[in-house]
């Protein structure tokens, strides 16, 4: 019988932040398999039961301190559906502006704090330098200062529209509680200029640091970080990337359309597989059927998030982002792009797109119209789907006729991406662990494999030190621990 060695990368953190990676080696010390495990959001789903639907958006906004606007927006859309209503056109514009401002803030933070350091400082650099501080030292303090100042423009818009710092309160079923004044519109328009400049600056940094670096481009376009799967994202009627509303489009590994759905239609396309080694069910495409945790043509795994959104779309709906969209696909020379480090590039393009969208929406004087509330029907059941920054987010509630939540189901981006993340981690481990040679560098090389997906594990709560500790346990062929590596 073949003996397996076991390496565990075990992030010990709190609710929803509970994740674990286990890597198994064979007798030769090469990777036999790898598993990525997380805890799902069932705690919140239970917590919502018995709660008035109007309270739910404000409550779910506490799911994540980073993704503050996305659960809130998805939940508000689900509440619209529960009350069988559609928000007014003005309310839709306000919500869309709010969500796009969030995209600017969130994508900026993820790129500069977590994505770019691998490239700017170097993927094999010491962990003490391979971080935002190292990034600032590499790009210069003035650039760092400029980025954070311009990012703050998005924060101001979120707080202005949301009605409360950090966790918004302004959305209501069927609308928004407060109309935008002309003065606010003008202020947002001025702030949008900073956001667009931030988007352009971010892509310039990406170009200077990654695109002009032959070694990094080999990493980006190579096979070590490649997962061939299907993709899902929201598009408008011209198949352009959307975040707030539209149709979910699914394409296969070659880019052929598998299907489209809205609302409860997700139940026709997404199934979940219970796996004995995982806390989390693994979603797959129901129409293809379960094919296992494998990528390649015919797989039933699908991915969501920035790269997935660009892969399912025919383009962006703003001019500057469209230029970069075309450039990205021209660089790879193929579509869909399966190289997961391109998630960072797609994220930067979306940052610019969202900034341009804020500018477009704030340029529309009708956003100050007073019609921000629609009539409500009798509450029953509703689904709200948006594109969260890290991928498709589905909130599904059933209430009684008084609007009290009886059942709740939340499918978040990290859940959709569970299969591809497993494949990515396994592939990276197979590429970088050879003949049992493991050192601290493996921690980051594996982290690079899941970082593009921006997994949201540690976000439901936090306590100091507010980060995700990673532990690597290495077992010998007898299953005994002989080495432990930690990043803390």
């Amino acid at each position, binding site marked *: 019988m073949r003996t397996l060695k076991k390496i565990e990368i075990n992030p010990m953190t709190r609710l929803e932040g509970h994740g674990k990676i286990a890597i198994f080696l064979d007798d030769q010390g090469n990777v036999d398999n790898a598993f990525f495990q997380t805890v799902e959001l069932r705690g919140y789903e239970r917590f919502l039961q018995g709660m008035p639907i109007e309270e739910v958006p404000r409550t779910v906004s*506490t799911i994540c301190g980073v993704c503050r606007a996305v659960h809130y927006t998805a939940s508000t859309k689900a509440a619209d559906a529960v009350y069988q209503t559609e928000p007014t056109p003005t309310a839709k514009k306000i919500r869309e502006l709010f969500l796009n401002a969030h995209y600017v803030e969130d994508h900026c933070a993820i790129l500069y704090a*977590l994505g770019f350091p691998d490239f700017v400082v170097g993927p094999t650099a010491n962990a003490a330098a391979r971080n935002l501080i190292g990034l*600032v030292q590499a790009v210069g303090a003035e650039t*760092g200062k400029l980025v954070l100042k311009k990012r703050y423009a998005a924060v101001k818009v979120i707080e202005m529209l949301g009605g409360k710092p950090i966790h918004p309160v302004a959305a209501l079923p069927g609308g928004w509680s407060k109309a935008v004044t002309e003065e606010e519109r003008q202020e947002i328009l001025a702030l949008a200029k900073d956001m667009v400049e931030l988007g352009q600056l971010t892509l310039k940094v990406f170009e200077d640091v990654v695109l002009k670096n032959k070694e990094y481009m080999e990493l980006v376009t190579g096979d070590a970080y490649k997962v061939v799967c299907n993709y899902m994202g929201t598009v408008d009627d011209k198949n352009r990337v959307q975040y707030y509303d539209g149709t979910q489009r699914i394409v296969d590994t070659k880019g052929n359309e598998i299907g489209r759905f809205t609302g409860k239609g997700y139940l026709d396309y997404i199934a979940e597989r219970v796996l004995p080694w995982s806390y989390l069910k693994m979603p797959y495409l129901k129409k293809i059927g379960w094919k296992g945790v494998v990528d390649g043509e015919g797989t039933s795994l699908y991915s969501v998030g920035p790269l997935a959104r660009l892969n399912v779309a025919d383009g962006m709906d703003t001019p500057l982002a469209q230029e970069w969209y075309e450039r990205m696909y021209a660089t790879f020379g193929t579509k869909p792009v399966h190289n997961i480090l391109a998630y960072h590039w797609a994220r930067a393009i979306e940052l610019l797109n969202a900034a341009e969208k804020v500018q477009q929406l704030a340029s529309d004087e009708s956003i100050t119209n007073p019609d921000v509330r629609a009539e409500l029907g009798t509450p029953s059941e509703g689904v709200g789907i948006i594109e969260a920054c890290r991928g498709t987010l589905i909130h599904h509630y059933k209430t009684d006729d008084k609007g009290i939540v009886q059942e709740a189901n939340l499918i978040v981006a990290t859940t959709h991406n569970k299969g591809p993340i497993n494949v990515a981690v396994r592939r990276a481990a197979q590429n970088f662990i050879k003949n049992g040679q493991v050192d601290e560098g493996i921690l980051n090389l594996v982290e690079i494999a899941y970082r593009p997906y921006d997994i949201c594990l540690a976000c439901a709560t*936090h306590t100091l030190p507010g980060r995700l*500790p990673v532990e690597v346990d290495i077992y010998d062929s007898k299953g005994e621990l002989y080495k432990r590596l930690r990043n803390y």
Partner: protein
Amino acid sequence: MRTVVVGIGNPVLRDDAVGVKVAQHFEGLVDTEILMTTDFKVLDKLLGYDRAVIVDGVRLGHAPGTVLEFNVDDLLFTYTYSGTHNLSLPTTLKIGYELFAEEMPREIRIVTVEVEDVTTFGTDCTPAVEKAIPEAVRRVRHYLESGSGK
């Protein structure tokens, strides 16, 4: 002297809310801010103030309810910088001082409360942590009234 008290925590996850609850005692007395994360949003709330108090729940291995105080330098030397989805408070504060030295508070006092349960939903802290809130409030008040930041 412009002063802000920042409470960090999730208001619906029992002991994780302890920083929020302590900060809320100072509403109306000084500027207060509530945060759920330790990323750039911390800087959004600190820039422009002369001094700040940050109150947060911690797991440092002490008995639940233990109240401790730190300066920024204590944290910077305590932790490495890493994460998948967030920034640690020490990293964020270090970035703040490196990029915005003129706008960051000249003094930051960090008051921590050792937590027991941050995984159960609820707005009440566990008894040991609830009992520690008055002590944490007293420490913050003492700092504001007679600390070196006076």
